[in-house]
Structure formats: C-alpha cells, structure tokens
C-alpha cells in the first residue's frame, strides 16, 4: 500500500515539475539575453540588483500572460531601447558587425582558391 501511495505521488508530481522546469528554462534563457542596464557587464540573470530583480518579475508576468520570447524582447526594446538586448538585430548601426565575418570568410576563401586550387 505504501508503495502504491509513493508511486501515486510520483505520478502526480512528475508532469507538474517538468512543466515548471520548462518555464524556468525559458525564463532563464530570456533573462540571460537581457542586459542589466545599471550593472556593468552583467546580464539580468546574473545580477541581484533592484532593477534586475524587478525585471525578472516582469518577465515571469509576461510569460504567464502567454507572451512569446520575441514578444517579450520587443516589449523591453520599446521600454529601454536596443541596448537592453545582448543579441542585436540587423540594422544600420550593426550591419558591419554582421557582415564583416562573412566578408572576411569570402576574402579568405578567395585567397585559398587562388593560391592553391588554381595553381594546380
């Protein structure tokens, strides 16, 4: 009987804990990608400042309201600007950042092609 009770408890609790874990994962992922604006070099996830703690509560609230990750980023972007996101979008201020690696890769590829493959 005891064993049965134990299994019953495990069965009841198991799906709940996995749902919570999923939500926690999502929350952690979002707060890791938000910059704590009043701390230096820390994400909201890492920081324990008043600002970061409030932000975590807001992220929880927005998740409960059923907002998606992108919608939450968009929400904070309208409040605090692009700077709050660690992962910047492609716009006129960041295009060098995005295009330079591709450019260097292509130039490097061209050099390799010219000097090794064409020689043969």
């Amino acid at each position, binding site marked *: 009987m005891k064993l049965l009770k134990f299994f019953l408890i495990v069965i009841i609790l198991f799906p709940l804990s996995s749902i919570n874990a999923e939500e926690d994962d999502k929350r952690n992922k979002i707060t890791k990608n938000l910059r704590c604006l009043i701390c230096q070099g820390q994400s909201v996830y890492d920081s324990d400042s*008043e*600002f970061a703690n*409030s932000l975590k*509560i807001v992220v929880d609230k927005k998740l409960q309201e059923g907002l998606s990750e992108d919608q939450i980023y968009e929400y904070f972007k309208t*409040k*605090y*600007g692009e700077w709050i996101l660690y992962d910047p979008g492609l716009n006129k201020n960041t295009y060098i950042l995005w295009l330079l690696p591709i450019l260097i890769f292509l*130039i490097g590829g061209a050099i390799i092609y*010219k000097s090794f493959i064409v020689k043969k």
Partner: protein
Amino acid sequence: MKNKILPFSVIIIFGIIFFIFYKGLDDSKIYTPDVNIKKEIPVFNTKEFFSGENVKSSSIFELDKAYLLNIWSSWCVPCRQEHPLLMNLNLENKLNIIGMNYKDNLKNAENFLKELGNPYKEIFIDLDGTIAIEWGAYGVPESFLIYNNEIIKKYIGPLNQELVDEINLLIK
C-alpha cells in the same frame, strides 16, 4: 599578379579593422540612455499610498496638465538630497508632483515624509518595482516630466537646481 593579391587583401582587411577601431575611440564607453523621449505614459493599476485603495493610472494623470512623476524611496540617500528641491517646486504650484514609492516599507516612507515634508499631490505604491519597469525607469531617484499624457523628458538620478530651472522653463 597572383603574388600581389595576398598582400593587397591583407592590407585592406587591416585597413577596415583599423578604421572600425579608430572610429570606436571616439564613442563614449559609458552607456547614456535617451532622455528626450516622446512616449505615451503606461497604463497600470496600483494602490494609493495613504489609503491603500486601488487606483488607475488614468485617474491620476489628466490631459492638458503638466506633471512631474518622481520615483522615491525612504532608503534612497540621493532622494533625501533632492527632496527640498521638490518642496520648492511644489510651492510654485505650476506643476503637479506625483510620487511613486519604490520598493519601500510604508512605515519608513511615512516617517520620511513627516521629517522632510510632503511635496506630492498624490502618491502611489510600487511594491515590487514592476511599475517602474513599465515606465522604463532605471532606479531611484528618477523623475519624468509629463504633459498631455506624454513623457516630455526624464531625469535619471537626483534633481539639482540647474535641472529644476530647466523644468521651470519647459513648463512655462
């Protein structure tokens, strides 16, 4: 010809990198938020400071009136410094000063007002700091100049006499 491509592209790549870093030297390393923002004020529900009754943001801020929303807290030392300035601003009576009590103990906040005076027309409570986030605030103290339900300007950190003069100029 083949031999020239390699040094040439190396020079160009270093040129580009040098250019980017050189431009970066001029940029400010300290992040400065945009303070001249024309944005609608957020809609929120909260509690009144003295009575504890529920209030809506729409009943606090009316159209065609100038407001100064001041985020304050009894544990915040710079708030103490700027408080006399708020008292003076209140005497001139052109501006409705609204207080947002940020993450505070109500007893301490009441004592703070008893000690230094109450310049606020209305005070509402932000217990967990989420309303401050709705406003796009960074912390305490911070002030927002509002006209016609629009944020005209925000002042991050304590006010000083210069900024008070600027506020007086703006609301004329």
